[in-house]
Protein backbone atom coordinates (compact mmCIF):
# COMPACT_ATOMS: atom_id res chain seq x y z
CA UNK A 1 0.00 0.00 0.00
CA UNK A 2 1.37 3.39 -0.98
CA UNK A 3 1.37 5.94 1.79
CA UNK A 4 0.32 9.52 0.95
CA UNK A 5 3.18 11.97 0.65
CA UNK A 6 3.70 14.11 3.71
CA UNK A 7 3.04 17.84 3.29
CA UNK A 8 5.98 20.17 2.81
CA UNK A 9 7.42 21.69 5.97
CA UNK A 10 9.47 24.27 4.07
CA UNK A 11 7.32 27.18 5.24
CA UNK A 12 7.72 26.17 8.84
CA UNK A 13 11.52 25.93 8.58
CA UNK A 14 11.96 29.30 6.92
CA UNK A 15 12.92 32.11 9.30
CA UNK A 16 10.00 34.27 10.32
CA UNK A 17 9.72 37.22 8.00
CA UNK A 18 10.07 40.64 9.55
CA UNK A 19 6.71 42.05 10.64
CA UNK A 20 6.08 45.59 9.45
CA UNK A 21 5.26 46.99 12.89
CA UNK A 22 5.45 50.55 11.59
CA UNK A 23 2.31 49.96 9.55
CA UNK A 24 0.26 49.52 12.74
CA UNK A 25 -1.43 52.84 13.43
CA UNK A 26 -1.76 54.24 16.93
CA UNK A 27 -5.20 55.10 18.26
CA UNK A 28 -6.38 58.48 17.01
CA UNK A 29 -7.73 59.80 20.30
CA UNK A 30 -6.66 63.21 21.58
CA UNK A 31 -5.13 63.69 25.01
CA UNK A 32 -8.12 65.59 26.44
CA UNK A 33 -10.44 62.75 25.48
CA UNK A 34 -8.08 60.11 26.88
CA UNK A 35 -7.85 62.07 30.15
CA UNK A 36 -11.62 62.48 30.39
CA UNK A 37 -12.18 58.79 29.57
CA UNK A 38 -9.63 57.83 32.24
CA UNK A 39 -11.48 59.95 34.78
CA UNK A 40 -14.75 58.20 33.91
CA UNK A 41 -13.16 54.75 34.03
CA UNK A 42 -11.29 55.60 37.22
CA UNK A 43 -14.54 56.60 38.90
CA UNK A 44 -16.14 53.32 37.85
CA UNK A 45 -13.20 51.09 38.77
CA UNK A 46 -11.89 53.01 41.78
CA UNK A 47 -8.56 53.75 40.10
CA UNK A 48 -5.82 55.39 42.12
CA UNK A 49 -3.45 57.96 40.73
CA UNK A 50 0.19 57.04 41.02
CA UNK A 51 3.57 58.69 41.02
CA UNK A 52 1.94 62.05 41.66
CA UNK A 53 4.07 64.50 43.63
CA UNK A 54 3.75 64.03 47.39
CA UNK A 55 2.45 67.13 49.14
CA UNK A 56 4.95 68.95 51.32
CA UNK A 57 4.71 68.16 55.02
CA UNK A 58 2.73 70.75 56.97
CA UNK A 59 5.77 71.93 58.93
CA UNK A 60 7.85 72.60 55.80
CA UNK A 61 5.24 74.61 53.96
CA UNK A 62 6.18 78.30 53.96
CA UNK A 63 3.86 80.40 56.04
CA UNK A 64 1.80 82.84 54.00
CA UNK A 65 0.37 85.96 55.58
CA UNK A 66 -3.37 85.52 56.13
CA UNK A 67 -5.45 87.65 53.80
CA UNK A 68 -8.85 88.87 54.93
CA UNK A 69 -11.61 86.78 53.35
CA UNK A 70 -13.43 88.50 50.50
CA UNK A 71 -17.22 88.14 50.63
CA UNK A 72 -18.41 85.75 47.94
CA UNK A 73 -21.57 85.86 45.84
CA UNK A 74 -23.15 82.97 43.97
CA UNK A 75 -23.62 83.35 40.21
CA UNK A 76 -25.65 80.72 38.35
CA UNK A 77 -25.58 80.90 34.57
CA UNK A 78 -26.74 78.69 31.73
CA UNK A 79 -24.50 78.08 28.75
CA UNK A 80 -24.86 75.94 25.62
CA UNK A 81 -23.98 72.29 26.17
CA UNK A 82 -21.04 72.42 23.73
CA UNK A 83 -19.47 75.29 25.69
CA UNK A 84 -19.95 73.42 28.95
CA UNK A 85 -18.29 70.36 27.39
CA UNK A 86 -15.34 72.40 26.13
CA UNK A 87 -14.92 73.93 29.57
CA UNK A 88 -15.06 70.48 31.20
CA UNK A 89 -12.41 69.05 28.88
CA UNK A 90 -10.10 72.03 29.38
CA UNK A 91 -10.62 71.91 33.13
CA UNK A 92 -9.60 68.23 33.24
CA UNK A 93 -6.64 68.86 31.00
CA UNK A 94 -5.37 71.82 33.05
CA UNK A 95 -6.43 70.33 36.42
CA UNK A 96 -8.48 73.39 37.34
CA UNK A 97 -12.20 74.02 37.79
CA UNK A 98 -14.63 75.34 35.21
CA UNK A 99 -15.25 78.26 37.57
CA UNK A 100 -11.56 79.16 37.36
CA UNK A 101 -11.62 79.12 33.54
CA UNK A 102 -14.68 81.41 33.43
CA UNK A 103 -13.23 83.84 36.01
CA UNK A 104 -9.89 83.92 34.20
CA UNK A 105 -11.67 84.77 30.94
CA UNK A 106 -13.54 87.58 32.71
CA UNK A 107 -10.29 88.92 34.16
CA UNK A 108 -8.69 88.80 30.70
CA UNK A 109 -11.69 90.72 29.32
CA UNK A 110 -10.93 93.58 31.73
CA UNK A 111 -13.20 92.86 34.68
CA UNK A 112 -11.62 93.67 38.07
CA UNK A 113 -10.53 90.47 39.76
CA UNK A 114 -7.55 90.24 42.12
CA UNK A 115 -5.11 87.42 41.34
CA UNK A 116 -5.46 86.25 44.94
CA UNK A 117 -9.16 85.58 44.29
CA UNK A 118 -8.43 83.59 41.16
CA UNK A 119 -8.02 80.09 42.58
CA UNK A 120 -7.41 77.11 40.31
CA UNK A 121 -9.30 74.63 42.46
CA UNK A 122 -10.69 75.54 45.88
CA UNK A 123 -11.21 71.86 46.72
CA UNK A 124 -7.42 71.41 46.78
CA UNK A 125 -7.09 74.27 49.28
CA UNK A 126 -9.61 72.67 51.58
CA UNK A 127 -7.69 69.38 51.59
CA UNK A 128 -4.54 71.08 52.97
Amino acid sequence: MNKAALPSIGDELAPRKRVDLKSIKSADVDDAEVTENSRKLGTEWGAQTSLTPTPEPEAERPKVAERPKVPLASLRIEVPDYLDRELALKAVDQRVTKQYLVMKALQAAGYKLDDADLVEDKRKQKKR
Partner: protein
Amino acid sequence: MALLSVASAKGGCGKTTLSILLGAELAMEGYTVALLDCDLNQHAAAFGKKMILKGLKIVPSVTEQNVLAEMRNAESENDMVIIDLPGGSSTLALKALQRSNFVIVPCQASLPDVKDAVKTMEQIADAEDLSRVKIARSLIWTRVLPGFESRSAKHVREGIEGTGLPVFGIQQRELAAFREMHVTGRVPRQVDPKSAAAENVTAITSELLGKLEKLAVAA
Protein backbone atom coordinates in the same frame (compact mmCIF):
# COMPACT_ATOMS: atom_id res chain seq x y z
CA MET B 1 4.83 51.19 15.17
CA ALA B 2 3.05 49.02 17.67
CA LEU B 3 2.14 50.15 21.18
CA LEU B 4 2.08 47.17 23.53
CA SER B 5 0.99 47.53 27.15
CA VAL B 6 1.77 44.87 29.72
CA ALA B 7 -0.96 45.29 32.32
CA SER B 8 -2.62 43.60 35.25
CA ALA B 9 -4.41 44.81 38.33
CA LYS B 10 -2.40 42.17 40.22
CA GLY B 11 1.14 42.81 41.39
CA GLY B 12 3.85 40.14 41.20
CA CYS B 13 2.45 38.33 38.15
CA GLY B 14 5.56 39.03 36.05
CA LYS B 15 4.73 42.22 34.12
CA THR B 16 8.22 43.72 34.36
CA THR B 17 10.05 40.47 33.65
CA LEU B 18 7.89 39.82 30.59
CA SER B 19 8.30 43.42 29.39
CA ILE B 20 12.10 43.18 29.56
CA LEU B 21 12.20 39.75 27.94
CA LEU B 22 9.99 40.81 25.02
CA GLY B 23 11.84 44.10 24.56
CA ALA B 24 15.24 42.40 24.55
CA GLU B 25 14.15 39.57 22.23
CA LEU B 26 12.63 41.98 19.71
CA ALA B 27 15.76 44.16 19.85
CA MET B 28 17.92 41.11 19.14
CA GLU B 29 15.66 40.33 16.17
CA GLY B 30 16.52 43.74 14.73
CA TYR B 31 13.52 45.81 15.82
CA THR B 32 14.02 49.12 17.58
CA VAL B 33 12.22 49.03 20.90
CA ALA B 34 11.47 51.51 23.69
CA LEU B 35 10.34 50.19 27.05
CA LEU B 36 8.54 52.76 29.20
CA ASP B 37 8.86 51.99 32.92
CA CYS B 38 5.65 53.27 34.51
CA ASP B 39 5.97 51.27 37.72
CA LEU B 40 6.78 52.99 41.00
CA ASN B 41 9.31 50.25 41.74
CA GLN B 42 11.37 51.13 38.63
CA HIS B 43 12.74 47.58 38.27
CA ALA B 44 12.88 47.80 34.47
CA ALA B 45 14.80 51.07 34.76
CA ALA B 46 17.26 49.38 37.13
CA PHE B 47 17.73 46.60 34.55
CA GLY B 48 18.28 49.27 31.90
CA LYS B 49 21.23 50.69 33.82
CA LYS B 50 22.98 47.29 33.73
CA MET B 51 22.09 46.00 30.27
CA ILE B 52 24.17 46.34 27.14
CA LEU B 53 21.81 45.72 24.24
CA LYS B 54 21.59 47.57 20.95
CA GLY B 55 18.08 48.45 19.83
CA LEU B 56 16.44 48.53 23.28
CA LYS B 57 16.00 51.79 25.15
CA ILE B 58 14.46 51.81 28.62
CA VAL B 59 12.74 55.07 29.58
CA PRO B 60 12.52 55.51 33.37
CA SER B 61 10.10 57.45 35.58
CA VAL B 62 7.09 57.59 33.30
CA THR B 63 4.20 59.07 35.26
CA GLU B 64 0.48 59.72 34.94
CA GLN B 65 1.34 63.26 33.85
CA ASN B 66 3.80 62.42 31.06
CA VAL B 67 2.76 58.95 29.87
CA LEU B 68 0.88 60.14 26.76
CA ALA B 69 3.74 62.43 25.71
CA GLU B 70 6.35 59.70 26.35
CA MET B 71 4.31 57.23 24.28
CA ARG B 72 4.17 59.72 21.43
CA ASN B 73 7.92 60.42 21.62
CA ALA B 74 8.78 56.75 21.70
CA GLU B 75 6.46 55.71 18.88
CA SER B 76 8.00 58.24 16.51
CA GLU B 77 11.46 56.70 16.91
CA ASN B 78 10.82 52.96 17.32
CA ASP B 79 9.21 49.91 15.72
CA MET B 80 7.74 48.85 19.04
CA VAL B 81 6.88 50.60 22.29
CA ILE B 82 6.36 48.40 25.35
CA ILE B 83 4.64 49.98 28.35
CA ASP B 84 5.35 48.26 31.66
CA LEU B 85 2.38 49.34 33.77
CA PRO B 86 2.09 49.35 37.56
CA GLY B 87 -0.09 46.83 39.40
CA GLY B 88 -3.48 47.97 40.64
CA SER B 89 -6.02 50.13 38.88
CA SER B 90 -4.44 53.50 38.13
CA THR B 91 -5.24 56.51 36.00
CA LEU B 92 -1.81 56.02 34.45
CA ALA B 93 -2.74 52.53 33.27
CA LEU B 94 -6.16 53.65 31.99
CA LYS B 95 -4.51 56.35 29.88
CA ALA B 96 -1.93 53.94 28.43
CA LEU B 97 -4.54 51.28 27.64
CA GLN B 98 -6.56 53.66 25.48
CA ARG B 99 -3.53 54.38 23.30
CA SER B 100 -2.38 50.76 22.99
CA ASN B 101 -2.69 48.53 19.93
CA PHE B 102 -2.25 45.39 22.00
CA VAL B 103 -2.39 44.58 25.70
CA ILE B 104 -0.82 41.50 27.27
CA VAL B 105 -2.22 40.52 30.66
CA PRO B 106 0.22 38.27 32.54
CA CYS B 107 -1.48 35.90 34.95
CA GLN B 108 -0.44 33.11 37.27
CA ALA B 109 -2.72 30.09 37.58
CA SER B 110 -4.16 31.07 40.94
CA LEU B 111 -7.61 32.38 41.77
CA PRO B 112 -6.52 35.87 42.99
CA ASP B 113 -4.43 36.37 39.83
CA VAL B 114 -7.22 35.21 37.55
CA LYS B 115 -9.80 37.44 39.21
CA ASP B 116 -7.54 40.47 38.77
CA ALA B 117 -6.69 39.48 35.20
CA VAL B 118 -10.39 39.28 34.32
CA LYS B 119 -10.87 42.70 35.93
CA THR B 120 -8.06 44.09 33.77
CA MET B 121 -9.62 42.56 30.64
CA GLU B 122 -12.94 44.23 31.53
CA GLN B 123 -11.18 47.57 32.02
CA ILE B 124 -9.64 47.20 28.55
CA ALA B 125 -13.09 46.48 27.11
CA ASP B 126 -14.46 49.62 28.81
CA ALA B 127 -11.52 51.69 27.56
CA GLU B 128 -12.19 50.34 24.07
CA ASP B 129 -15.86 51.33 24.26
CA LEU B 130 -15.09 54.84 25.47
CA SER B 131 -12.28 55.59 23.04
CA ARG B 132 -14.06 53.79 20.17
CA VAL B 133 -10.74 52.23 19.12
CA LYS B 134 -10.04 48.51 18.86
CA ILE B 135 -7.60 47.30 21.54
CA ALA B 136 -6.42 43.74 20.89
CA ARG B 137 -5.56 41.83 24.05
CA SER B 138 -4.60 38.45 25.34
CA LEU B 139 -3.88 36.85 28.67
CA ILE B 140 -0.63 34.89 29.09
CA TRP B 141 0.08 32.32 31.78
CA THR B 142 3.23 33.30 33.64
CA ARG B 143 5.58 31.73 36.18
CA VAL B 144 4.40 28.27 35.17
CA LEU B 145 6.37 25.55 36.95
CA PRO B 146 8.07 23.22 34.44
CA GLY B 147 6.81 19.68 34.28
CA PHE B 148 4.11 19.84 36.91
CA GLU B 149 0.67 21.41 37.09
CA SER B 150 -1.13 21.27 40.42
CA ARG B 151 -4.79 20.30 40.64
CA SER B 152 -5.84 23.82 41.61
CA ALA B 153 -3.71 25.42 38.87
CA LYS B 154 -5.27 23.15 36.27
CA HIS B 155 -8.74 23.91 37.61
CA VAL B 156 -8.15 27.67 37.42
CA ARG B 157 -6.51 27.48 33.98
CA GLU B 158 -9.35 25.41 32.53
CA GLY B 159 -11.86 27.75 34.14
CA ILE B 160 -10.47 30.83 32.43
CA GLU B 161 -9.94 29.07 29.11
CA GLY B 162 -13.59 28.05 29.26
CA THR B 163 -14.66 31.68 29.34
CA GLY B 164 -13.41 32.22 25.79
CA LEU B 165 -10.99 34.98 26.76
CA PRO B 166 -8.01 35.13 24.38
CA VAL B 167 -5.01 33.33 25.87
CA PHE B 168 -1.47 32.83 24.52
CA GLY B 169 -0.81 29.23 23.54
CA ILE B 170 2.73 29.54 24.91
CA GLN B 171 3.18 29.89 28.65
CA GLN B 172 6.00 31.78 30.32
CA ARG B 173 7.78 29.30 32.52
CA GLU B 174 9.20 29.92 35.98
CA LEU B 175 12.94 29.66 35.38
CA ALA B 176 15.97 30.82 37.37
CA ALA B 177 17.35 32.65 34.33
CA PHE B 178 14.41 35.08 34.44
CA ARG B 179 15.36 36.09 37.97
CA GLU B 180 19.09 36.18 37.28
CA MET B 181 18.73 38.71 34.49
CA HIS B 182 17.72 41.37 37.03
CA VAL B 183 21.04 40.77 38.79
CA THR B 184 23.30 40.47 35.74
CA GLY B 185 21.61 42.81 33.28
CA ARG B 186 21.80 40.03 30.65
CA VAL B 187 18.73 38.26 29.25
CA PRO B 188 18.79 34.46 28.77
CA ARG B 189 19.54 34.67 25.04
CA GLN B 190 22.67 36.69 25.79
CA VAL B 191 23.81 34.12 28.36
CA ASP B 192 22.94 30.91 26.47
CA PRO B 193 20.87 31.12 23.27
CA LYS B 194 20.08 27.40 23.46
CA SER B 195 18.81 27.43 27.04
CA ALA B 196 15.23 26.54 27.91
CA ALA B 197 14.67 30.12 29.06
CA ALA B 198 15.90 31.60 25.77
CA GLU B 199 13.75 29.18 23.78
CA ASN B 200 10.72 30.00 25.93
CA VAL B 201 11.14 33.73 25.26
CA THR B 202 11.63 33.15 21.54
CA ALA B 203 8.40 31.13 21.39
CA ILE B 204 6.40 33.80 23.27
CA THR B 205 7.79 36.56 21.06
CA SER B 206 7.05 34.57 17.93
CA GLU B 207 3.42 34.13 18.99
CA LEU B 208 3.18 37.84 19.80
CA LEU B 209 4.61 38.79 16.40
CA GLY B 210 2.04 36.54 14.75
CA LYS B 211 -0.73 38.44 16.54
CA LEU B 212 0.81 41.81 15.64
CA GLU B 213 1.21 40.71 12.03
CA LYS B 214 -2.58 40.30 11.85
CA LEU B 215 -2.98 43.87 13.13
CA ALA B 216 -0.43 45.11 10.57
CA VAL B 217 -2.29 43.37 7.74
CA ALA B 218 -5.62 44.80 8.94
CA ALA B 219 -4.17 48.36 9.16
